[in-house]
């Protein structure tokens, strides 16, 4: 970890200065931006010591996000999304990828050097620097009214990116998003250049740089790299616990993914041969229906959903939503494993975030603090390990669920739902899962910033980044796995059509 930091620090400064050079007249637009953020800040009375760095950070981000939208609106959504997918930013923008209605399976681009970009861009995007986070934390720890801090924290610090994007949605609508991503891309390119000069040798996620391979190949490579890593440094116990690829495999994610790829591939071949055997009107009619399926796979709901309540979801909500979506699918399988895993993770987080309440008596408070401290004996390394493990587990479970769904769609009993209805439920499910990952990563970072109050910034920052990186990766893997379901539903649509007249 220490050598990595040594490399990073100079690069970060470089990236920041470049961004400042390339900054487009922030003064001109800062007013309108302020208007977006002000009501939010007002509604939450916070100590000014805490608020300032946050407000500034979201300003910075929104400024760069809003500005290019004015110049690039003509570019149109499609071209923007394509560009995004082609650059390393596809994956930082993987939440963004779903915000746009394009969400094509960009397996080939899985994280070309995302890790690099994100770690650096974090700074260039105006996300509060680690030192800021830790000063905030120090102030926070001195305050008695900790509850209020908790309220604000999901919006604070590194989560700025997500919350600002959703703020932008609320105020200005879709065009801002595409513009925002445009800006992210611009910054991304700049950052990429900087990184290319600076630090080509990056660790863990190096395997992801490979192009033109399937998702499982990519993840397998990650895992194998990590295995080599662990066998070479057996002593690094803590490090082993944070290898996403190894953990993903441990939760059988790779196997499920390969199985899903197999079913997807078989279905794709079938669909192609059927399409080849058709002609004329028949072919057109089928193509039209398949087009509808594809639309259901586009994840368009993401942005419309986003501006509704941003409130923290309760455990039951997630479970209920998944159960409901699954009943819509009408496959005789249930997401119990996934929801159980998710609830266990949430309990852990809740416990480690438990804070003494202000209205309690002194004695109670003292006891509470003692208890919390005990739970909070989790070091930032523990939280890091748990976060990565949780992300790997949830992703593996989700992909397992997709695999089972594919198997049941292909070989299950007669269906009472159409393929299009199923596609909608599945795409909704993908959205729910990705949002869940986003929420989780925010909560983990809250845990980290709180526990790491006294840590040096250069220790805390890479960990926070790693958690966000893996959460973003996880969301991408889930979205890519979801796309693997398309041929499966296509063939089920075709089969249900040919079966109908006989029945």
């Amino acid at each position, binding site marked *: 970890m220490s050598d990595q930091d040594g490399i990073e620090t100079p690069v970060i400064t470089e990236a920041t200065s470049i961004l400042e050079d390339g900054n487009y007249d922030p003064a001109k637009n800062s007013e309108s931006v302020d208007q977006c953020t002000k009501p939010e800040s007002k509604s939450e009375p916070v100590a000014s010591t805490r608020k300032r760095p946050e407000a500034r950070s979201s300003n910075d981000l929104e400024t760069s996000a809003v500005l290019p939208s004015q110049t690039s609106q003509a570019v149109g959504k499609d071209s923007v999304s394509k560009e995004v997918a082609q650059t390393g930013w596809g994956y930082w923008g993987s939440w963004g990828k779903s915000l746009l209605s394009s969400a094509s399976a960009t397996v080939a681009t899985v994280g070309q050097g995302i890790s690099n970009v994100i770690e650096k861009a974090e700074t260039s995007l105006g996300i509060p620097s680690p030192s800021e986070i830790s000063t905030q934390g120090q102030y926070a720890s001195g305050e008695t009214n900790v509850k209020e801090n908790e309220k604000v924290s999901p919006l604070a610090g590194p989560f700025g990116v997500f919350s600002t994007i959703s703020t932008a949605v609320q105020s200005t609508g879709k065009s801002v998003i595409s513009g925002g991503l445009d800006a992210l891309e611009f910054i991304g390119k700049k950052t990429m250049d900087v990184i290319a000069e600076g630090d080509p040798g990056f660790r863990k996620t190096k395997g992801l740089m490979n192009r033109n391979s399937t998702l499982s190949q990519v993840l397998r490579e990650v895992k194998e790299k990590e*295995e080599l890593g662990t066998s070479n440094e057996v002593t690094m116990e803590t490090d082993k616990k944070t290898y996403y690829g190894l953990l993903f495999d441990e939760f059988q994610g790779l196997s*499920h993914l390969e199985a899903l790829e197999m079913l997807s591939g078989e279905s794709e071949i079938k669909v192609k041969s059927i399409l080849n055997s058709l002609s004329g009107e028949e072919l057109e009619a089928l193509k039209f229906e398949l087009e509808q399926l594809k639309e259901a796979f586009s994840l368009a709901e993401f942005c419309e959903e986003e501006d509704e309540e941003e409130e923290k979801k309760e455990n039951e909500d997630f479970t209920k939503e998944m159960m409901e979506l699954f009943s819509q699918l009408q496959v005789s399988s249930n997401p119990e494993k996934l929801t159980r895993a998710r609830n266990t993770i949430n309990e852990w987080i809740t416990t480690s975030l438990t804070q003494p309440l202000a209205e309690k008596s002194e004695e109670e408070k003292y006891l509470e603090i003692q208890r919390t401290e005990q739970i909070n004996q989790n070091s930032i390394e523990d939280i890091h390990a748990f976060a990565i493990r949780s992300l790997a587990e949830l992703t593996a479970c989700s992909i397992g669920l997709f695999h089972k769904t594919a*198997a049941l769609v292909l070989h299950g009993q007669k269906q009472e739902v159409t393929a299009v209805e199923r596609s909608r439920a599945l795409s909704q499910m993908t959205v729910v899962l990705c949002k869940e990952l986003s929420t989780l990563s925010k909560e983990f970072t809250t845990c980290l910033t709180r526990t790491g109050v006294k840590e040096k910034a250069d220790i805390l920052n890479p960990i926070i980044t790693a958690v966000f990186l893996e959460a973003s990766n996880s969301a991408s893997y889930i979205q890519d796995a979801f796309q693997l379901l398309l041929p499966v539903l296509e063939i089920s649509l075709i089969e249900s059509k040919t079966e109908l007249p006989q029945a």
Partner: protein
Amino acid sequence: MEAIWLYQFRLIVIGDSTVGKSCLIRRFTEGRFAQVSDPTVGVDFFSRLVEIEPGKRIKLQIWDTAGQERFRSITRAYYRNSVGGLLLFDITNRRSFQNVHEWLEETKVHVQPYQIVFVLVGHKCDLDTQRQVTRHEAEKLAAAYGMKYIETSARDAINVEKAFTDLTRDIYELVKRGEITIQEGWEGVKSGFVPNVVHSSEEVVKSERRCLC
């Protein structure tokens, strides 16, 4: 998580629906008995490390297959990349025993050009009062196909460890003798990751010397 093992073996578990394949595997990998269990959809995946000799670990990847006929086209695809298999029948269900032939024929067709080392498992041996298949006839059948026979119970945890570790040892012996070899494009046996600290430091020394010359 322990990343150090000598080999990784892929084992497949097959047999009629409801003979208890998933329960046996879960007892082995999770150490508990699941009272209620949904029928397996397609394939499921489990893994566990087994220590066959002190310090010698083998990672088992276990493929749990659906017994239901409708998933056969999926499960078939998994024979090829398996080095070993547990063929289960339920000792209280004569039909599942009679189907053992068919299962063996089925695998033979789909495993070419490779081979699977099978063990015949008479499952649910805790239900001895309802037994429909005698130990003797099961042993006879197993011998006819060159398999070992073992009776297990996932509920009472009888012979579950033994069934898996014996099979693992047998495969390990075949690998050691070179009768089963690691092959490109075949996932049945893979070599594991062994710490090679000494080895790598030697390399460093060598290359340094070269530089000095």
